[in-house]
């Protein structure tokens, strides 16, 4: 855990820990980033599941640039928060579950997008219904992100400082 402790002494970790607002500014960025990335992902998933069928899937392509920006904001603030409390977070079960489900959510989203490209002729070009596989991936992606949010919220109740 020595390297995690030393993270607290780097400028970002110590800013989050000892400035008046550093910690809260990171929390705000983390929430805004989450809203953008999870929100955009959910809209894609809901569309794949059959909502608003005349909405072209390609509409989500520019939205993905915005989702990436949200993800980067979320990851950067998350990293800063981690630096401030690495030793405790690394042994906090909800935190580990959260990170795991973010990975699952990302992988499943990637698999969903690949699936949609495979089904391109139907779902993208003709705005037709997605396959059961694509719908399953969409539902799983949403579920993974919701579990990640849930676990993230539980960190506040279980973490030591």
């Amino acid at each position, binding site marked *: 855990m020595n390297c995690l402790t030393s993270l607290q002494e780097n400028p970002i970790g110590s800013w989050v820990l000892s400035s008046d*607002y550093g910690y*809260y500014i990171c*929390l*705000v960025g983390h*929430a*805004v980033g*989450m*809203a*953008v990335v*999870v*929100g*955009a*992902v*959910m*809209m894609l998933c*809901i569309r794949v599941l059959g*909502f*608003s069928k*005349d*909405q*072209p899937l*390609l*509409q989500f392509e*520019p*939205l993905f640039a*915005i989702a990436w920006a949200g993800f980067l904001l979320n990851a950067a603030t998350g990293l800063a928060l981690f630096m401030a409390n690495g030793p405790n977070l690394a042994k906090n079960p909800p935190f580990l579950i959260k990170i795991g489900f973010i990975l699952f959510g990302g992988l499943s989203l990637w698999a969903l997008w690949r699936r949609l490209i495979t089904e391109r002729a139907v779902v993208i070009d003709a705005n037709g219904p997605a396959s059961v596989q694509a719908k399953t991936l969409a539902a799983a992606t949403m579920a993974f*992100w*919701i579990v990640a*949010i*849930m676990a*993230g*919220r*539980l960190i*506040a*109740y279980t973490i030591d400082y």
Partner: protein
Amino acid sequence: MTSAQILAFFYDSPFGIASRQIKGVFSICETVHFVGLCLLIGAILVFDLRMLGVLKRGSLKSALNYTHIAAFGLALNAASGLVLFSNKPSNYVANPAFQLKMLFLLLALLNVVWFETVERRKVMALAEGESTELGTKMAAGLSLLLWFGVIILGRWLPVTALGGG
């Protein structure tokens, strides 16, 4: 009804009692509040950016379907928010960030009323390929600003809360 009575009404309501006495109710409502705000923000990104012309594909009408998802997310947040508020109403109303959040929420809801009563009809009347009018774009831009403001202020609540958040 005095303001103290109104606060006591929320505090003594089943929501307030449950949030204080049943372990997990408060944190579950926090999670629901977060999921609801993701749905709301995701949905407004689709239709507000479509109204603004940042997103260009598909009909304006199909983008407006997403207002239903925004309404659903908002309903989740109103319900979970009511429980969170009833936990300690007097702390929330005394919190400047909460007061400002409620102001932003009110303005955002007024903007929704404006959009639904005036702008939606104009959007529906547009022919395919036509872009939205300035008023519609203003409502869409305000919607993004105000709802993001609500979230930022909401996450700022612990900073200005009495006795911590």
